[in-house]
């Protein structure tokens, strides 16, 4: 368990993901007041059936996205460690997408700015629903000095790993 006082991290156990997309639903309801899968800050990819997984920011130690932003639209929350987007400052140039080793940031589908997980200011909605359902793919833990950027990988890379882990080498044909 975590207290609200310390920065947090969302540990992820991707192979257990059911693909229920309740995290997408919860995230977009919380941030957009709509069910909006492509506007969700956590998105469930499934290029290979059965190997569904959530894809979202991992708060890299060095925050390359923040550094790459030419107009300082991104900052780091002291409270949670999340990347915060100043939506008015963002010029939608996409530099943060290129800088992110996992290509995590994406444009808001209807507005002219980037969206990145803000850790819901310390009480992640996605974690809550994933836990309620008993899938426990997502768990909130204390943020420590660890190389979390290891988890910032592109959907293609993750999909390939998971598919091969599930289906063995024949998964190569499915990707």
């Amino acid at each position, binding site marked *: 368990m975590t207290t609200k006082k310390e920065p947090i991290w969302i540990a992820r156990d991707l192979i257990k993901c059911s693909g*229920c997309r309740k995290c997408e639903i919860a995230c977009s309801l919380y941030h957009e007041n709509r069910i*909006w899968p492509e506007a969700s800050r956590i998105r469930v990819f499934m290029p290979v059936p059965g190997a569904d997984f959530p894809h979202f920011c991992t708060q890299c130690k060095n925050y390359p996205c923040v550094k790459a932003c030419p107009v300082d639209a991104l900052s780091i929350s002291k409270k949670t460690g999340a990347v915060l987007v100043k939506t008015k400052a963002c010029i939608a140039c996409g530099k943060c997408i290129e800088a992110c080793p996992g290509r995590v940031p994406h444009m808001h589908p209807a507005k002219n700015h980037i969206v990145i997980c803000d850790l819901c200011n310390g009480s992640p909605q996605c974690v809550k629903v994933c836990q309620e359902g008993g899938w426990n793919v997502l768990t909130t833990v204390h943020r420590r000095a660890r190389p979390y950027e290891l988890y910032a990988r592109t959907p293609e890379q993750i999909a390939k790993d998971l598919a091969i882990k599930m289906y063995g080498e024949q998964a190569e044909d499915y990707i």
Partner: protein
Amino acid sequence: MIKGYAGKILEVNLSTQAIKDIKIGDNILKDYIGGRGLATKILWDRLGKKWEKIDPLKSENILLFLTGPLTGYYPGGRICVSGKSPQSNGVIGSTVAGEFGVELRCACYDGIIVTGESNKPVYLFIKDSDVDIRDASHIWGKDAKQTMATLGRECRELLRKRYPKFGQLKEPSFLYVGPAGENKVRTAVVAAKWTHAAGYGGYGAVMGSKKLKAIAVKGTGPLPKAANIKEVKRLIKVVNDNIYENVLWRRWGTGSGGYEVGAETSSEPVRNWQDEWHNEKSFGVDQFENRVWIKQSWSDFGCPTCCLKVAMIKTGRFKGAITDNPDYEMQAYLGPNLGLFTPEENVFLSSLADDLGLCGIQTGNVMGFAAELFQRGILTKKDLDGIEPKWGDVEAFAALAKKIAYREGIGDLLAEGTYRAALKIGEKKKTDVLKYAVQSKGISIGAHGIRSGKDYPESISYACSVQGGDHTSTAGLPLDGSGSELSEIFNDSGVHCNFNVFGVPRKVKFDFYKAVTGIELTQKEWYKIKAFRILQIQRALLLLGGPDIKWKPKTHDENPPRFYEPLPSGPYKGKTVDKMQVEEDKRRYYNAVGWDENGIPKTKTLEKLGLEDIDKVLKKSCISKSMLK
């Protein structure tokens, strides 16, 4: 405009390549909701007057993919596929789970209507309002997994190229047909992912007849705005909390049925229903769980149940086979119904059916039928192109499935589905083989028998259903009860998964409808008027039928003859269905739904629902006269 709808439907004419958006009037949406209800209405309006002449597998048929206002909101997203059915010659609301319906609504479409037919294989690519008809020659002939892989790569690449600024879009959602659909096999499915299927109705054959290999859709918008999102959130939680209690389905899906429906309720098809009891512990859910399941919970959009389990065979002669669960229906029809009792054989055959694009239920049914004819010496090894489908011979059934999917030799005949195959074989062999055909109105009976009386369907559940043998839409009384077909029409029109209503107070889905659309729909209004009206139109179109087959209620509002044979073994040995009871139940049912003693909707019934035009067509049609006999 009513809340909760995108407000437009995409209409694609494959003959002329014309693409347009159409609008459906608010009054129609209020009455028919979406999915199955709306499909029935659209089909009646467009084809009703010439229904009997419409060949389901020719360009004049129309193919519908419809969502409803609850798709994506009510936990467990689905889409409803419909059209004139090449199985029943009526209308089937055939739903399939997945993200397709949600993506479509996020692309700001409530559905897709496909008319005409293409002269070469094509697929539709939809990204929000950008719609392309694209060449599909390179995927024509490919199986499920190859199709998904090739299309997946191609469409992800298209999205990257065309919309580079967004960052990484999620992959689009797909519906497609396998080789069986391409070859117009009447038991072909419209598939999603690798393993999900809209099977009842045979719409894979319709899609194939139009040379439409697949549809890919990516929507980047939100779900159409709900009237009261706060209430929607509350209701989602109510559904989830109720479903989370359902330990059985969450843990085993329907995968415990393969053993239990045989051993406990004695209502599982065994060797083409010659029995409904088995006690093969080799088919126990523990065996599936420990030997073949590689993923315990697999789910579709918003679903709290996760009835799916991913299964894979990693060693031995079936190495490489992948499917889901198999769920109970696949277990039964591609298991005991063919005399097979191991998880590995079952996964292998299910995976093969997925790959070929065959409906496991109905193909399992027709193969069981062929195997019984072989057992009785009616079909010989020669008739069967050298195949000897002995009970339990998995290789023989695999060979037969391939022949069916490609319509080769005997497969061409069996590809017509059990009923039509029975007529043809009967004619050829000059003997009645219909008594071995376990189907109702061209639709194979789902894997829930009625003889033991311990499963859910009742004596007239299949006989009087407007969707024939479909076990997800069965007839029952009282009309406003949970066993009524009118209840299923709600789920199929909503459109959401019917599994997520079990254990949830019925009021919740009506509250859901109101929270999303802003319109109050009372249960009384639904059961007495709206669903009732949809049922009557489905019944009328089923009776109009044609062109190859017409149903006569006297003969065809009936159980398969097998259900009148006593159960040969098990705890309910000797039990059977009482014909007198069926007649009595039928009378009560006709009376309740306002059909005359011949099973035809009464003028009074139709007039009260504002369906005078249907009454006219129905009464004018030859059926009224000939059906009196």
